[in-house]
């Protein structure tokens, strides 16, 4: 089987992406439904997301600030920002493994655009992110951190993260539908990535090894592009540059693959 898409494949893939994007009301609604369904009949509802995040950050913040001999007044806000952004990245990647297999009911029966389900997934994770991010201003208020202008750089960072998330979801979704071991592999990669990414520790603690662990680690790049400004520091030019390159690479790989395999996804379900 050749992996080269025909012009017709391209045409249909582009139509799929266009229809997927323009059906925003559908993926928006599906994402809201996902969240509502998860917390239906619960008193606190989706704010369980916020509460469990607060509990984690509070607990780990206390323990690790002692362990790393860090001042809790700087460590806890740092951890809170990083962990909130990491949860978004991790959530998108983990959910991506089931993006098509969990939508089989729709895909097998109607000609719905495949990309619509990627948008639904990203939207759902954004809603969770919106619940999590509530704790950041609270933590900042608690430790008396005053916001500065650098924080605005988190917005372009967030846009970059979402632009990258789209091909990631499609790519992981396709591979996971075809090869059923992928979700487990990805789960393991994420577990290791959590420790190799500066979420709980700081880059300067790493010393001379830092450029190797952080400089090209895609998780670290996309984490820092959002989290660093929120921590009051502009990301380095290197971080921006690598992020751009990674996005270009992701689209260059996923585009043709999606064009070629789009119609096959339903057959693998």
């Amino acid at each position, binding site marked *: 089987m050749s992996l080269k898409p025909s012009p017709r494949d391209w045409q249909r893939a582009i139509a799929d992406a266009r229809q997927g994007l323009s059906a925003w009301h559908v993926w928006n*609604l599906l994402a809201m439904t996902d969240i509502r*369904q998860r917390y239906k*009949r619960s008193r606190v509802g989706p704010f369980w997301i916020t509460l469990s995040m607060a509990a984690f950050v509070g607990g780990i913040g206390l323990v690790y600030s002692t362990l790393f001999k860090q001042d809790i007044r700087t460590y806890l806000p740092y951890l809170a920002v990083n962990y909130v952004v990491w949860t978004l990245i991790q959530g998108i990647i983990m959910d991506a493994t089931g993006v098509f297999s969990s939508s089989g*009911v729709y895909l097998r029966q109607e000609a719905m655009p495949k990309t619509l389900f990627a948008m639904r997934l990203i939207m759902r994770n954004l809603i969770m992110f919106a619940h999590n991010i509530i704790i950041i201003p609270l933590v900042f208020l608690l430790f008396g951190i005053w916001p500065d202008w650098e924080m605005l750089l988190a917005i372009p960072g967030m846009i970059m993260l979402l632009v990258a998330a789209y091909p990631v979801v499609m790519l992981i979704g396709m591979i996971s539908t075809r*090869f059923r*071991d*992928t979700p487990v592999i990805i789960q393991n990669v994420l577990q290791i990535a959590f420790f190799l990414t500066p979420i709980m520790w700081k880059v300067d603690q790493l010393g001379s090894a830092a450029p190797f662990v952080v400089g090209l680690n895609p998780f670290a790049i996309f984490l820092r592009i959002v989290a660093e400004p929120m921590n009051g520091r502009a990301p380095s030019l290197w971080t921006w540059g690598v992020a751009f390159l990674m996005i270009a690479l992701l689209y260059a790989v996923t585009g043709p693959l999606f064009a070629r395999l789009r119609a096959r996804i339903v057959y693998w379900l």
Partner: protein
Amino acid sequence: MASIILENACVEFPIYNARGRSIRRNLMARVGGSVAADGDVVSVNALKNVNLRLTNGDRLGLLGHNGAGKSTLLRVLSGAYEPSSGSAEIQGAVSSLLDITMGMDPEMSGAENIVLRGAIIGMTIPEARERIPEIAEFAEIGDFLDLPMRTYSSGMNMRLAFAISTAIRPDILLMDELISVGDAAFASKARQRVQELIASAGILVLASHDPKSLLEYCTRGIVMEHGQIAFDGPIEEAIVRHGMEIPEMKKETSAVSGA
């Protein structure tokens, strides 16, 4: 303007066993040479070289034994399955009443489900919201509208699913057996709704084992055998060819004569 053109459409399902779907197996095959390289991918030919042209006004009946490819063909016509080889060009809004409960969520209320399902089948959200009362009234769910669907009786469930699914007027209507829902009173109301849908649809494709409904709604018939079209012609001949008898019936005037 609705039209469907299938040219040499084949649907071939690869059946990967557990090994075929694992990356290890795939890597091994690449690393360790070609030991039984494609020995474990079995494929099922659900459709073979199907050629079909349908235009506005066509009323097609699908006949065939179980497993002959009727459902697969319906899914190709809906656009969900794109042929693994050959082509399928489908123009017009398709409504497939194959699984009318698709996308409904038992935890959500009837009203929420109307909006959700409505959006999936092509309504805008304001439009879906606006039509909640009308759909609920048709489904006769009364005060249950704002309760979660898990509290519904199975009859209410089906009535609501039916009311939503038939709330839009498609260009192309696909059905797997005529839907019959509810008690006698509702069934006649539902029947009338289906007839209206059929009358307004450009193309109807009805898969059925019931010669009576095939004769009533269809003019052309296809007999499927082993994933291929074994016969294509007038519905009466298709029914005979399929080995069924043409039932005695009065020609009902409600029968549809093209849109």
